[in-house]
């Protein structure tokens, strides 16, 4: 048992590393703080084009769609190596991770031809338009409607929690096309041009003060039927294939989030109730141990999954525990550490100690992380139902026509 690369993995890693050493030099240091969106987009496009030319885009995609036809392990190794550099990240993760696979799986040949290459090259940015104000955890509760008019569909409604909508050229959008069918059955998926008339994007400010998401309003937006993905009424099935990719992406502890080391360091400098350094207090030590167990346990669980991938097997269900453990551990750690710091843990902004400011960010950010990509509650349902085989919750509206459903 070991954590080493298999020989062919080591070889690929060496090639990637050499290429990055050659080509990523300008990303040695973190980018300047407060970069504006246009510059971020320009930098992202430049890097994506470079990667594309070198054959590091679409690593796991079939070659017929411009991919490299390699294994998930190759993709992970590339990602691990790239993450050692401060290359621009995020702009394409949803488009290439979720949208375009849906496009090439369900789109007609012309559409695939038109959109996939430009997306892979980074010339066009994509977003995913699924969630709505009344359809969050219950994604099939979508109300945005698409009505057919000849060769076109007319979309009206509102989407929410859309990352990079403001930077996107296109999106995939799930709409209700038949409200007389039960909720999961009357949905259809489309490609929509985010610059089309009637599309309005509005940033959502979060509790943290940041704005990572948008609301998107559709007001009579027209889409040609050729831009439909999958059959009319099959939108739920199509969306599920998209979401499968999300579950894999949402997982470990955010890269810079404080962990047990933060608490160890902090506890050396503050006092326990008896006046001695808090690092000697057993409640502090128990918290350090529990945080180590949770965070490190998730890392190791991910390594179990990687080992399965490395052997060409399908990973077990164990990685489904990642986010629910990581997010709550972050919140508990931040809360405990800020408590421990008294008034200093409360003073913020320019007046704050940088470590404590990070913990404050973590305390607030973790409240969002416990929700984004599936709430703690939904994830526990998923573990219990999909992993342990327990029956689902009662779903009184499952078989009712959507427009006749009365909430219980």
């Amino acid at each position, binding site marked *: 048992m070991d954590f080493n690369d298999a020989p062919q993995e080591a070889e690929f890693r060496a090639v990637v590393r050499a290429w990055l050493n050659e080509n990523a030099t300008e990303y040695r240091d973190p980018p300047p703080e407060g970069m504006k969106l246009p510059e971020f987009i320009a930098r992202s496009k430049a890097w994506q084009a470079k990667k594309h030319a070198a054959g590091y885009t679409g690593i796991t995609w079939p070659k017929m769609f411009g991919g490299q036809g390699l294994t998930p392990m190759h993709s992970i190794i590339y990602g691990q190596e790239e993450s050692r550099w401060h290359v621009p990240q995020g702009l394409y993760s949803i488009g290439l991770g979720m949208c375009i696979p849906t496009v090439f799986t369900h789109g007609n040949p012309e559409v695939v031809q038109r959109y996939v290459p430009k997306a892979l090259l980074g010339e066009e940015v994509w977003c995913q338009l699924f969630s709505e104000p009344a359809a969050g955890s219950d994604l099939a509760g979508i109300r945005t409607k698409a009505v057919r008019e000849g060769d076109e569909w007319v979309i009206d409604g509102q989407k929410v929690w859309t990352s990079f909508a403001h930077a996107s050229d296109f999106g995939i959008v799930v709409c209700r096309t038949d409200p007389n069918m039960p909720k999961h059955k009357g949905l259809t998926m489309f490609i929509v041009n985010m610059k089309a008339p009637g599309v309005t994007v509005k940033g959502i400010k*979060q509790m943290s003060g940041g704005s990572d998401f948008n609301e998107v309003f559709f007001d009579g937006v027209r889409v040609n039927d050729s831009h439909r993905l999958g059959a009319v009424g099959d939108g739920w099935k199509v969306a599920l294939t998209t979401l499968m990719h999300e579950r894999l992406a949402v997982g470990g502890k955010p890269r810079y989030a404080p962990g047990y080391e933060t608490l160890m360091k902090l506890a050396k400098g503050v006092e326990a109730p008896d006046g001695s350094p808090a690092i000697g207090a057993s409640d502090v030590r128990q918290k350090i141990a529990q945080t180590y167990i949770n965070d490190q346990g998730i890392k190791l669980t991910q390594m179990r999954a990687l080992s399965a991938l490395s052997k060409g097997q399908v990973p077990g269900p164990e990685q489904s525990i990642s986010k629910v453990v990581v997010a709550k551990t972050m919140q508990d750690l931040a809360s405990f550490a*800020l408590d421990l710091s*008294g008034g200093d843990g*409360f*003073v913020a902004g320019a007046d704050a100690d940088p470590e404590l400011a990070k913990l404050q960010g973590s305390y607030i950010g973790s409240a969002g992380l416990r*929700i*984004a990509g599936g709430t703690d509650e939904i994830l526990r349902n998923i573990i219990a139902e999909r992993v342990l085989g327990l029956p689902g919750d009662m779903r009184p509206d499952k078989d009712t026509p959507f427009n006749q459903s009365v909430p219980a």
Partner: protein
Amino acid sequence: MNFDFSDEAKELGEQARKLLAEKAGTGPARKAMAADAAAMDAALWKEIAELGWTAARVPEAHGGLGLTVEEVAQLAEAAGGSLAHVPLVSTLLATEALVLAGTEAQQAKWLPGIASGEIIACVAWSEPGAVSPATVKTVSSGSALTGVKQPVADLAVAHVAIVAAAGADGPQLYIVDLKGAQTAAVETVDLVRRHGKLTLDNTPAEALGNAGDYQDWLDRAAVILAYEAIGTAGAAMAMTVDYAKTRVAFGQKIGRYQAVKHKCADMYIKLELARAHALHGLAMIGTNGAELRQVAAAARVASLDALAYCAEENVQLHGGIGFTWESDCQFYYRRNRALVAALGPRGWWADRLVRALEQRNSAAA
């Protein structure tokens, strides 16, 4: 057995909740959050003073109503529940110190102004590097203090500060007239309540009682702040429960799901435990009960537990919308941190509780 608020206290609480439901709450809190907003709602403060809330605890001899700590608790809970943008709890905490430990002259100097609302008072025990009220680095020369106090709630609008600093027998309280004092605003996690930094550089100060009085004041402050926390936690719980009754997912109100329902039940359980200890604290203050030290600590710990849980799970059960800037969830989530900082953390108070139990045991032995 009469383990309950007096009818008079309940009536004042009713009045306070009614007024603050109208004049305070999350709407005004949102306005107060703006960077250029005033450090307090002066119009509301005027109304509060006119209604005699700041006079409640002030002895009649000093222009007050001479009411009990029960009335103070009702006011603190109402303030906590409404997030009222006024220095009410700060002033009540300072008043309690003056009532407990002030000389006749000190009371005569400060209490009439407090009663009338013209004088706003704050309390300043916290220091950079201090994690609890036990740690005080500010030094006293007898008639002047030197040190830094931060974060101090409502410092910007206060006229007088009750300051903890080293004394002959350990930390004790002092009175500092803030006229001409060196103060500055400090940013905090709570964007509504304003906090400041008080720099004492041989600043004139008068001792307020002795080291024992400081410890006794901490007990009383813990009970009063427990009520503020109970008020805030209760408001967060009410917000969650309301949402759970109306929000629909998967064809049913989310309040039908046990994951949601049981978290609401746990909020209620934690709140009722906090209420029990806080009420016990009032009973002990009212009767000079020997158990106050342990009871106050229990009230502090239980109320912080209730507040943290209600504030955190309120966001959680709202889902995505609860994490937006537009949602009111953030007020309780942020205030949670303010009330931890207001008198030191859970761990220190839990330890104080056990120390009190040990002392009682060894006294009994």
